[in-house]
């Protein structure tokens, strides 16, 4: 078994964003289910939150390559 510790680091760093993105979209879904007319506003906010969350995972992958 070969590999790199940096990639394990990336795997660890992806846990947080994974949970975060899940929470964000869960909130988005329940929000739209409660008030379907707010869909447009919520969509933008949800994507923004998703992006800011995903940013961490992206940092992870970039740093994984930097330190590999």
């Amino acid at each position, binding site marked *: 078994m070969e590999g790199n510790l940096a990639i394990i680091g990336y795997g660890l760093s992806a846990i947080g964003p994974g949970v975060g993105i899940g929470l964000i979209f869960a909130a988005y879904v329940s929000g739209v289910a409660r008030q379907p007319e707010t869909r447009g506003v919520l969509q933008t906010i949800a994507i923004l939150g998703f992006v800011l969350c995903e940013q961490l995972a992206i940092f992870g992958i970039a740093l994984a390559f*930097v330190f590999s």
Partner: protein
Amino acid sequence: MGAIDNAAAVLAAESGEGGFWESTYPVIPHPGELIVGIISFAVLYFLYKKYVVPRLETMLAERQRTIEGGIERAEAMQAEAKAALEQYRAQLAEARNEAAQIRDAARAEGQQIIEELRAQAQEESARIVARGEEQIASARQQVVNELRGQIGALAVDLAGRVVGESLADDARRQGTVDRFLDQLDGMSATEGRGDAVAVPGGNR
């Protein structure tokens, strides 16, 4: 992505050929690519700013205007239709009014005709009654006159017979009787009666 080391090993095998840019981290930008990226972006941005977006904006503004024009036209048409409806309604009301007026007038006229007819009939009946009365009066007058003559003659005759003297002069006798009778009338009868008696006297 499992084995970067593996790739590095491959790289190491063919290093020298791959050079710095192959083996370096992917997060270090390649200057040539950066420059090409900036230039492409700038060129495209310039084109968009100068041509594409203004054209699209002009078109959108034009469409907005067209739609607004359409709405305005539709509104104008609606207003026109409303005005026509108003007018039609007014005309209808007017016509209805007129009809009512005509009906009223006709009714009034009918009433009037009936009134007139009634008045005429009443007049007629009054006339008939008057004529009847007149006839009765004249008949009565005639009778009275006849009676008066006869009474005069009878009275004179009676008086002559009683008195035993003959009154030859007809005219004087006549005047005396008349005067006597008039005196009687003046004492007992009313004015109208006197007139009624006097007029038929003239008629005869």
